[in-house]
């Protein structure tokens, strides 16, 4: 292990003095070193590959901040973690941008499935075939006229959970009715 560390530091020192073969070997060893680190944190191999390329480019850009006198691994891992955080931040921000607001679903889906086209009574039989909780929620919201908040209070549930259950029920119903 120490020998490998010595090698990495020596390789980096040679790289800084312009030895291109040493630099290629260093980058190869770095990519082998970081691959398990990225694989443990990312779901897809393609994501790990893309990020690995970004990390290697970052190491290249920042190589003047390494002097060859301190351990190489912590320096390389610091850059890898930095790029990984950037990647994950962008990834989750993108997911949030594409996320659907449940309030919007409540406004659009019920209209399309149960109100504008069909009445609750006409699909009553299908509703009864739904899981018990979903059927109860739809009945309270569309037959008894309760809001999602009121249903949540009566069933001792979270309002978001009521909306999620209703949304799932709408999806099942739409699937059945479109057939």
């Amino acid at each position: 292990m120490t020998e490998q560390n010595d090698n990495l530091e020596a390789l980096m020192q040679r790289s800084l003095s312009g030895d291109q073969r040493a630099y290629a070997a260093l980058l190869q060893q770095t990519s082998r070193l970081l691959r398990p680190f990225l694989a443990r944190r990312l779901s897809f191999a393609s994501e790990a590959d893309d990020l690995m390329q970004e990390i290697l480019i970052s190491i290249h850009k920042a190589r003047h901040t390494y002097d060859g006198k301190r351990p190489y691994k912590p320096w390389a891992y610091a850059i890898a973690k930095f790029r990984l955080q950037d990647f994950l931040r962008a990834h989750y921000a993108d997911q949030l941008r594409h996320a659907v607001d449940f309030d919007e679903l409540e406004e659009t889906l019920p209209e399309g499935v149960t109100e504008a086209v069909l009445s609750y009574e006409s699909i009553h039989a299908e509703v009864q075939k739904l899981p018990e909780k979903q059927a109860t929620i739809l009945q309270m919201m569309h037959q008894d006229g309760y809001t999602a908040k009121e249903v949540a209070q009566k069933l001792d549930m979270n309002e978001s959970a009521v909306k999620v259950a209703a949304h799932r029920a709408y999806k099942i119903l739409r699937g059945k009715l479109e057939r």
Partner: protein
Amino acid sequence: MENIDDLISRLAQDGQTVKSAPHPFVLSLKWMGVALIYLVVSLAISGVRPDWADKLQNPLFATEIAALLAVFATTTFAAALLVFPDIHQKGRLAFAPLASFMLFVLAMYLSWQSDVPPASLPVHGIECTLGITVMALLPSIWTFYFMRNYASTHCRLAGSVALLSSFSIGALWLRLYEVNDSILHVIEWHYLPMLVIGIIGLLLGKKILKW
């Protein structure tokens, strides 16, 4: 994107001789040297408070100036450490400004306790904060400019300490220039804005030091 092996070959071909960055001690000494020259030149232009020699005999004033110098030195050193991706593997030293800030707060507390009866408040207020900010502008610009040549992985923190370092130079200038003995005024308009500056530094660091 291209294959990893192709990328490595391409980067290796681009691997010319590179001069390593100076050690953070050397880097911070350079930055401190430039900032102190700026402070001396500014004081030479604006003039020093006429009672400066007497004031420096006052232990509380001398402690305040020494603590402010310590804040300046430690924040500059922390900024120099934080431009390295691995903090030059001296992570604990990056928190050195905390110790100097505690010393500074203690010095201000002692000055406030001994300000009996309180010295009369000057008529101006925010002008002092603005003066310090204007004085800190140039050091801030050059510090961020130099920091961008490195590769910080703690951009927010680096931005915050860099701005605090510049602001402490502005605060030193005003304390040595303005004839003012009201410690309440000094705390309110000279030093409390440092908290806001620290927060602005966090935001600027994220924007400017990203690489």
